[in-house]
């Protein structure tokens, strides 16, 4: 594959990362996404946009997030030094708010007054509802019926923040159906509504703009590790659902050839069982939700339901830039089963006093092997993209503890 000289040139003018990405939407939405792209180009050049963003990042979100040396986890594995990029310390407890803030500021520039979003675990929904509350905007969150039941605390949180929750029962009532329903709402309410997509997927320009907003993670991490260690890391690791936290960490390092990148997908009950969410390791290219990417699908091109212990990774696709990074060999993608993630969740909590979300627990489950392979001179940055408060009830249940 021709990757030319720089990773920064992607996506191209057609919204493509190599053969992935694009704008596969109904015609009703085409003028809207073209307008969004034009507005995003203007915003990027506008110092006032950046200044407003920086100010809120610092004083509202709490950036920069620390880069923390996980000393006991490092000792435990006896290999490379492991650092956590602590995006779980952000306001609302995950990296999601980095993106929501950017998109809602864009929506305001465009004069949109109603924000819609899809959510799985509820983290993106909470982050969107939070920013909407901050700016006094109407917020409607689409959530699969089964997730509404599984994620009651986040549903309540969103309601407290003034958002309207629409439980989605169409299809199979999961995250992908919530996204379908959000798209249906958007084609219906084209004049006043802005669709705030939660990950680096969807039609162009979403994968690009979500990546750009999340790249604050990698930009900070790059400066922080140079200051702490005087050199670049050997490996970056992050969990992958749609892949926004991973791309946020990876992207600012793409030109640094010595830096390896490892994304970790959710293998659910095991890829061989068919019950997983590992689109790259267990899927093939297809077209869904506005972009061409790796998807879990049948031989006949019907989309399969994903499965993961972590609702945040429970999606049958993956951001198109990850599909591109994988096929070009720039990044590598491993996977972690539910059981391994649960063990890593407990290990991190006990050794570091940090309760990770189940999502980054998937990355933690693979970090030991990588650390040992690199040896003591190695350096790893792992993105701690969310905290585990939201997961304590489901983990208790899985461990057979009555609460």
């Amino acid at each position: 594959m021709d990757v030319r000289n720089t990773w920064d040139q992607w996506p191209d003018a057609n919204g493509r990362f190599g053969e992935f990405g694009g704008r596969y939407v109904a015609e009703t939405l085409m003028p809207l996404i073209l307008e969004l792209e034009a507005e995003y180009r203007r915003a990027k050049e506008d110092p006032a946009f950046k200044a407003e963003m920086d100010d809120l990042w610092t004083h509202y979100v709490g950036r920069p997030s620390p880069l923390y040396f996980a000393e006991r986890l490092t000792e435990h594995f006896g290999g490379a030094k492991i650092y956590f990029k602590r995006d779980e310390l952000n306001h609302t407890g995950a990296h999601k708010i980095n993106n929501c803030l950017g998109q809602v500021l864009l929506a305001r520039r465009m004069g949109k007054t109603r924000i819609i979003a899809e959510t799985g675990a509820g983290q993106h929904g909470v982050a969107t509802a939070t920013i909407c509350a901050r700016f006094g905007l109407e917020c409607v969150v689409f959530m699969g019926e089964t997730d509404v039941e599984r994620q009651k605390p986040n549903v309540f949180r969103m309601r407290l923040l003034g958002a309207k929750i629409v439980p989605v029962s169409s299809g199979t009532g999961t995250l992908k159906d919530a996204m379908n329903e959000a798209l249906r709402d958007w084609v219906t309410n084209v004049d006043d509504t802005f669709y705030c997509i939660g990950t680096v997927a969807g039609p162009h320009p979403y994968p690009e703009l979500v990546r750009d907003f999340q790249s604050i993670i990698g930009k900070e991490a790059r400066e922080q590790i140079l200051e702490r260690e005087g050199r670049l890391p050997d490996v970056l690791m992050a969990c992958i659902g749609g892949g926004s936290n991973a791309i946020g960490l990876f992207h600012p390092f793409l030109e640094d050839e010595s830096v390896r990148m490892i994304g970790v997908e959710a293998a659910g009950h095991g890829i061989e069982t068919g019950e997983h969410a590992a689109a790259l390791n267990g899927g093939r290219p297809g077209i869904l939700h506005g972009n061409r990417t790796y998807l879990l699908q049948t031989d006949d091109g019907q989309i399969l339901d994903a499965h993961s212990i972590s609702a945040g990774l429970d999606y049958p696709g993956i951001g198109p830039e990850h599909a591109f990074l994988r096929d070009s060999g720039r990044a590598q993608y491993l996977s972690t089963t539910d059981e391994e993630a649960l063990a890593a969740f407990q290990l991190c909590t006990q050794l570091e006093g940090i309760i990770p979300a189940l999502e980054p627990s998937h990355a933690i489950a693979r970090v030991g092997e990588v650390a040992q392979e690199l040896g003591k001179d190695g350096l790893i940055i792992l993105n701690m993209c969310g905290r585990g408060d939201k997961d304590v009830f489901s983990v208790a249940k899985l461990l057979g503890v009555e609460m």
Partner: protein
Amino acid sequence: MPTERITAAFDRAKADKRAVLVAYLMAGDPDLETSFQSLCALRDNGADIIELGAPFTDPMADGPAIQRAGLRALANHTKLTDVLALVARFRETDQTTPLIIMGYANPVHSMGYAKFAEAAHVAGVDGTIIVDLPPEEDAELRGEYAKYGLSVIRLATPTTHEARMKKVAEGASGFLYFVSVTGVTGAGSADPAAIAGNIEMAKRVSGLPVCVGFGVKTGAQAAEMAKVADGVVVGSAFVEHAEAAHESGDLARAPQGMGALAGELSKAIAGVAKP
């Protein structure tokens, strides 16, 4: 040959000084035999062009009625190859009624554009409407269609301004499908007066016949739309008969109900004299 069948259908209607009736049904809903009977009933009762839905798990431009139709067809394991086989069966006895496959990109992409185009041609398909393949993304498929003269039928909407319409018209053939409302299939209908200007613009820019759909359910609505457009598309209202048939267990109700509705709609449309 295929595009000619579509053109001929518009020519016949023109000779009768009327608009065409385009009827939609979901293939395999509730089963393929019923779909075949329904196709014949639609044709026999005045449907000029028939759109055959290819089911997809994630129909993000469809409202509840067509979503459920797709799920029923999928529950019945209807594959894209079955949809093509249904077309081939219909073509054994009908060489004139244009058949359009309407659906989403992934099943077609999964089969492969080249393979699909050839199979569609062999089966006797005249064109396709792939909802999530806007002009920016259909060049590859169009290249394959060109080998067989298959039509790429595009959608235009109230959000399609004139500059955009030029893009939509580029490479389109057969007719243009004007979606009358911003919304999903089966939702509220548009005021024909409000979209008459858009339709005029669509005709002028594309040079193609323009059919209007989304939200048209009754003869009265169809007649209103026939005043401003070259054709009227009705979908959800037909699909509801398949649902009723499925729920009652009496599958013959699908072709009967669809035939009766097609009769009512075609009569209403014929009542509007076109210049």
